């Protein structure tokens, strides 16, 4: 007979917190767990739908049980049992502290300075962490038109720390975006038409020092240096630095690479698979646990 979720909960502490081997996890799992590692136990996190949401839920279930999760539709600190498919899913509202709306989340929380971490997606990113989720080509007759900002530009500029998850392709990692939805560490000063450090454009506001600190892609993890420029921090298992440079539209700084990205541990994978997305919504692909672990789970 299958175990109840309560029995599964009791198992968590018995699952080894050791890195899984190649082939024992899929790339989206690794990425979700990279996201989870960005979350601190005392963070107030504002996350978008999809892998960011899956990642912060994983964090909330492992390394950051006290992190406060905000969803833009108005949810404050929901204690989720079933993974939400949207930021307005009633599943995300379960046992929340308060339920409000966008004025609460973007005004009372975000613009008011309470949000310490934002986790977002992006269609393209520039070397200073500026993000484009609007359009490619001429704005008024684009080659590609995306959804537009949503909360990306708000959260991406006013959360204290911001992290992005982006698919790594040459056309998505750019020296300069064609349209900057969410400014990174350098951006346009529209009053003068100049390209300037965010710190100057936002000078005097409370958010001048807020901005991107991490990017997670399907190939590696990134951080930002003192000048606000992105650099490669680690490469995912099976990926080479050379491959990463080939999939980057600008001359990527790889001088600070620390090595291979930490593989997810069995405990992390167990929580992700059994508690975050057991319905196989966001991570529909399935890789078996190693036999010994499966035996432990079966009891």
């Amino acid at each position, binding site marked *: 007979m299958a175990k*109840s*979720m*309560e029995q599964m*909960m009791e198992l968590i502490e018995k699952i080894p917190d050791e890195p899984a081997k190649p082939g024992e996890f899929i790339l989206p799992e690794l990425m979700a767990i990279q996201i989870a590692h960005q979350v601190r136990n005392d963070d107030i996190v504002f996350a978008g*739908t*999809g892998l960011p949401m899956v990642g912060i839920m994983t964090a*909330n*279930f492992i390394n950051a*049980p006290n992190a406060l999760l905000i969803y833009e*539709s*108005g*949810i404050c600190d929901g*204690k*989720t049992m*079933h993974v939400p*498919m*949207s930021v*307005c899913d*009633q599943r995300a*509202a379960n046992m929340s502290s308060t*339920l409000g*709306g*966008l*004025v609460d989340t*973007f*005004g009372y929380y975000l613009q008011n300075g309470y949000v310490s971490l934002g986790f977002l997606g992006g269609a393209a990113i520039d070397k200073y962490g500026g993000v484009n989720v*609007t359009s490619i080509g001429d704005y*008024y007759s684009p080659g590609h*038109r*995306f*959804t*537009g*900002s*949503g*909360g*990306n*530009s*708000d959260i991406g*500029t006013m959360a204290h720390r911001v992290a992005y998850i982006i698919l790594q392709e040459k056309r998505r990692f750019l020296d300069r975006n064609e349209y*900057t*939805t*969410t*400014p990174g560490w350098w951006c*346009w000063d*529209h*009053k003068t038409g100049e390209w*300037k450090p965010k710190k100057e*454009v*936002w000078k*005097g*506001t*409370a958010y*001048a020092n807020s901005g991107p600190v991490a990017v997670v892609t399907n190939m590696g993890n990134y951080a930002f240096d003192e000048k606000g420029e992105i650099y490669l921090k680690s490469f995912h298992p099976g990926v080479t630095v050379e491959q990463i440079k080939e999939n980057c539209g600008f001359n990527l700084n790889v001088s600070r690479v620390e090595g291979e990205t930490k593989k997810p541990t069995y405990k992390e994978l167990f*929580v992700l698979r059994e508690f975050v*997305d*057991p*319905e*196989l*919504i966001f991570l*529909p692909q399935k890789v078996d646990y190693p036999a010994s672990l499966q035996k432990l789970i079966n009891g």
Partner: protein
Amino acid sequence: MPRLRTQTKKAQIMSLEEACKTFMHDGAMVAWSGFTGFNRNPFAFAWQTVRQGVKNLHVIDRHGSCCTWLLNAAGAIKVYETDWMGWGEMAGKLDVNLERRYKKGEMILEDYSHGAMAMRFLAGAVGAPFIPYNAPLGSDLYNPKYDALGRAGMRGKDARIPKKKFIQMEEPFWGEGDTVLLPAARPELAIIHVAQCGDKGTARWRGVGTIDKEIAYAADKVVVLAEEVVPESEMRKLPEGNQIPYFVVDAIVECPWGAFPSSVPFYYDYDAPFMRDMDKVSRNVDDQKKWLDEWVFGPKTWEEFIVKLGAKRLLDLKADSVTGYSTRMMRGKKPAPRMKMPLSVAMSGY
């Protein structure tokens, strides 16, 4: 928008057809309740709007939804002033019809961000002409070149379209650098789907509010669609639970399952497979035509639409009275597990 009224509104109870005929018209500037395709979309009203053949709408909103998907599928939107032009996160991020029509030059998109639209509706709701908002300086959202309504020559001609998209100014009270003034949002019509509405118009939902309270106040006319119309005195037993006071409401429509395929917390869940199918048909003109014929022009009434879904689907979607959502419906490849307690609670000791 501020307009001195000389008398109280009196909300009329109407049928869906009557309400749509009375309040919706070609060229109307409209806002729709809920959030993305998942929560309290007044889909029945959008459905009726398309059946009535309404065109050239100016949608001013905080999101795309099942409503805008349908309106775009029918080519009913001329101006789309919003911040997120997908409609259901899981069912294809971007609205395919929207992209198709936009690229053909058949519609105007005016981009803002979620926070900006929230602030614009807040300003509209409190009767303020504008509101300052900090984010995001340096974004192309506030690049003077990218003012789509201005470029189309539509500013300063219509009482509902402000003369400027935004104004960047130096913050004068605290020395806090620059800030961006955003004009109030002032729709003509707000369409709001709620859980319960009193027979005088006092309305309530559970779950998130998104910006539905704000759009109800910011708009001139308000149509409330409710799962249940109940005696007003029942709504008055817990006034703290009500979000919309009766005096802003013009029409009340009782419309059970009217937000399908989106959810109404504590009534029913969203239908993810139905939404995935909507997204799928939108990728092919013929499939979409068939879908519209079957689901929009086929049923004679909204009740027929719901009956067509079948009892099994209604049973599966019925919300649990404790959590407000369903654990019986199939959302992914496996059924939802039964849980007594969120893992985060177990880990943090709430």
